[in-house]
């Protein structure tokens, strides 16, 4: 099948690429753009490690083709910090509350938490647990992730 040209915005930057139609969005981000912060855990939409923001909404980038991102806006973990050298509130809170260990699920988890906070700036613990229930973590038991989100959203 013929390669297809796409134009999209990734972390605020306009990008043009030519991709194989079957290339998944996550493979495109990781291999073509070398944005390796977004991770691949299961490639069938369960673990959430590959979660990115598509026009502000969290989506599984393993279950989406790169061509479907044509003329869309993508945010990956590399685009969360307000400026180079700084951390976003949620990134900072994950560090402070030890909301991660191996760091592998962390990018997807941060994206999901950011999407939650964007819609609901002061979520309850139950709302946090519900929001992250589609992101699997094998290290933390979720406790310190919940603590981190509480920390990030209570501190005003």
């Amino acid at each position, binding site marked *: 099948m013929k390669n297809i040209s796409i134009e999209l915005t990734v972390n605020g930057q306009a990008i043009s690429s030519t991709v*194989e139609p*079957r*290339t998944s969005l996550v493979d495109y981000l*990781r*291999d073509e753009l*070398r*944005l*390796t*912060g*977004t*991770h*691949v*855990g*299961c*490639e*069938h939409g*369960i*673990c959430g*490690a590959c979660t990115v923001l598509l026009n502000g909404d969290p989506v599984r980038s393993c279950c989406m083709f790169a061509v479907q991102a044509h003329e869309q806006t993508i945010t*990956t*973990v*590399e685009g*969360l*910090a307000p400026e180079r050298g700084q*951390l976003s509130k949620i*990134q900072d809170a*994950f*560090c*402070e*509350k*030890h909301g*991660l*260990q*191996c*760091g*592998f*699920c*962390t*990018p997807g988890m*941060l994206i999901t938490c950011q999407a939650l906070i964007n819609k609901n700036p002061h979520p309850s*613990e139950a709302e*946090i*647990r*519900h929001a*992250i*229930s*589609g*992101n*699997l*973590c*094998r*290290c*933390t*038991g*979720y*406790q*310190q*992730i*919940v603590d981190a989100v509480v920390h990030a959203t209570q501190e005003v």
Partner: protein
Amino acid sequence: MSNLPITPAQFTYIGKHRRAVEHRRFVVGKGNYAGDVLKPGTLHVAIVASPYASAKILAIDASAALVLPGVVSVVTGAEINAAVLPVLPGVDAPEVRRFPLADEVTRYSGEWVCVVVAKSRAIAEDAAELIQVTYEELPFVLDPEIAISDASHHVHEKAGTNLIFNRQFVWGPVDEDFAKCDHQLSYRVKWARSSTVPIETFALTCDWSDATGILDIWASVQMPKYPEQIANALKLSTNAVRVHYDVDVGGSYGVKRGLKHAILLGYLAKKLGKPVRFIEDRLENMRGGDMQGPDRLFEVSLGFQKDGEITCMKMRALEDIGAYAGRSPLQLGKPVGAISGPYRIKSVAYLAQAVLTNKTPQEAVRGFGQAPTNYALESGIDKVARFLGMDSIAIRKRNLINKDEFPYLIPSGTHYDSGDYATVLDKALREANLEELIKQRDTMRADGKLAGIGISSCLEPSGGNSSFEPLFNPKNETTTWMESCVVKIDLGGQVTALMATSTSGQAHETMVSTVVGEILLQEPDSIRVLHADSLNALPSNSPVGSRMAIMLGGAAAGAAKKLRAKLITIAAAQLQVSDQDLIFTGSQVHVANHPEKNISWSELVAIAHRKFHLLPKDMEPGLQEKFVWEVPTGGELPDDQGRVQMYPCHSFESHVVLVSIDPDTGKASIHRYVCGHDCGVMISPDVVHGMTYGGIAHGIGAALMEKFSYSPEGQFLSGTFMDYLLPSSSEVPAITIVDHCTPSPLTEFGQKGSGEAGYLGSPAAIANAINDALATINASIDYLPMTPNAIWNAIQEKN
């Protein structure tokens, strides 16, 4: 060995909240995982796997694959296995040989048969589908109890048996003790085949250079003696394999061993002269990644008196290791070092049996076999309580080793270093508010739900001594399991430490910098910690066996103490006093009671690095020290009865859980979870708590959800996260950890291990809670996982 303070409050940096150094790179997406490594010109790999439980490979036709544009090579077992040496099991079973690709016969569904190398992973997968393999199906065996019978087909014909390890240990007068007991109770429990299932699959890149003669490996590995085993299999010299330990590992908890992966890719990289990369997809990981975990049937008899005193135990453990063996049979060995749990059981008979079946092989899983054994023993404690009509807490307290009995010698020859078990249990019960918990349980029962409270009390042997190697294989005389660290102070006075292994989430850089900071009284955040590669590393046995706080922490402290001593000696020469008269404060060294007679850190550094004329005679210039630490209490072979000091340190945990069961669906929900935990002095409390929370979540999975299933035809049924269920934030409740600190007398700061914490006791506590709930309808379940279906069936049987 310590002259430092042993109460946490007296430390400067140890035991304090501190942001982990590693987090900074992870939260901005700048980790360096094996899957992120992409060398120019890299070739990619896809695997062709056998669909049969066992089959003979008659022919492999790769012609259609080889003409696909972008395909570089197809390699079969016949080719690679002629070129490499097989990997042998950790027990003495030389005919159970494992090659990276099947050697004429496939022995489990999913076993790797051949491999395609192509310019992209997608092309490699396309080509893999074009390869035609002709098989002749062979007999197979899935049930471990059938596999040990004389009539069974042998998984490895030449081995002549499926039972590759079978040893009866008898420690103490077991039969006499049983004869003296008022009662005895026998039961069977089964721990299901599950694993740690990290979110990152195994990934690696291998790159061979003809120019240097070095095979470079970037792998998501947690494995002792990894480079040496790869070199041996590939017939390379051991200094021709360089494993890059600065790769961040995306979770492991024991299983990331990847030996066959590295032998396969090392062979391909050398053959093709190009970097070769393989990142398992999830199915490859679960099916042929050889990372399934313990699958163990227990038959236990406990002998006890009518007052609840348990005096003796017989335990048989039959471990279904799958089709090949690496270190998996040894997972029956670690529990020898805590076979009687935290109890004063006086005599024990232990029959350890490892059996081959036609399933995916096992690898080391968090706790190295201790969690299943703890589950078996703790189930029994509740059964004894029910039998005697006693409270299960009272039974535990009746039998727990008292805090003034340490060091305590258990029947299998291990001394427990220290502990205060009853206090930890009490603290957990207090935190859980037992009276309130009972009220809640009874209210739920009154509302028509099944509800129960579960307790467990168990040990986490830590410090990774690996005495199970000579215990389970007398040909293996390994008695050291050392760990190393290099610490240096540079010309600018800055401190850098070099550790010798990879990290998979345990925040070793944080731990080492905290420890070195504590000794040298330097701000830990100013201390850089690097991961060596295997060629410039000193010996390491990797982060297994809950050992790094003890062993790497001890090694880092040892090297830092040598540096501190050297700085003091330089100062003594300058101030013309003896070393003993000096006080080290980090910023300076001064004469005791005379702070004005001092010499600064920067001046001491300048003398060591630049002013040789001021250095004491015969002193080596510069500031760099190594320390290689032997496991405390290690160094001995087992005696002829199989008595051995297994691990040096023994952490303790006690879990208290309230569950309810929806009688219509069988679904269990956890309402309260408290874990009392004592791992001595915590170097990094955030890290210890994090691992404990994670261990409990992992235990919830093992208890309620996770199982690698096989069809009666030997087909693997759990290759996705829709079939193999991992606990999410919906299943894992809020957890309360209650700390207690009984320092270990054997370690630098009083620390013990904690990498397996939580997981070692949570399955037992949850199972006990569910059986407490089911006891109200006279039902019980004696196997894991207690899925909704399993619980529903147990309820229906009573209706």
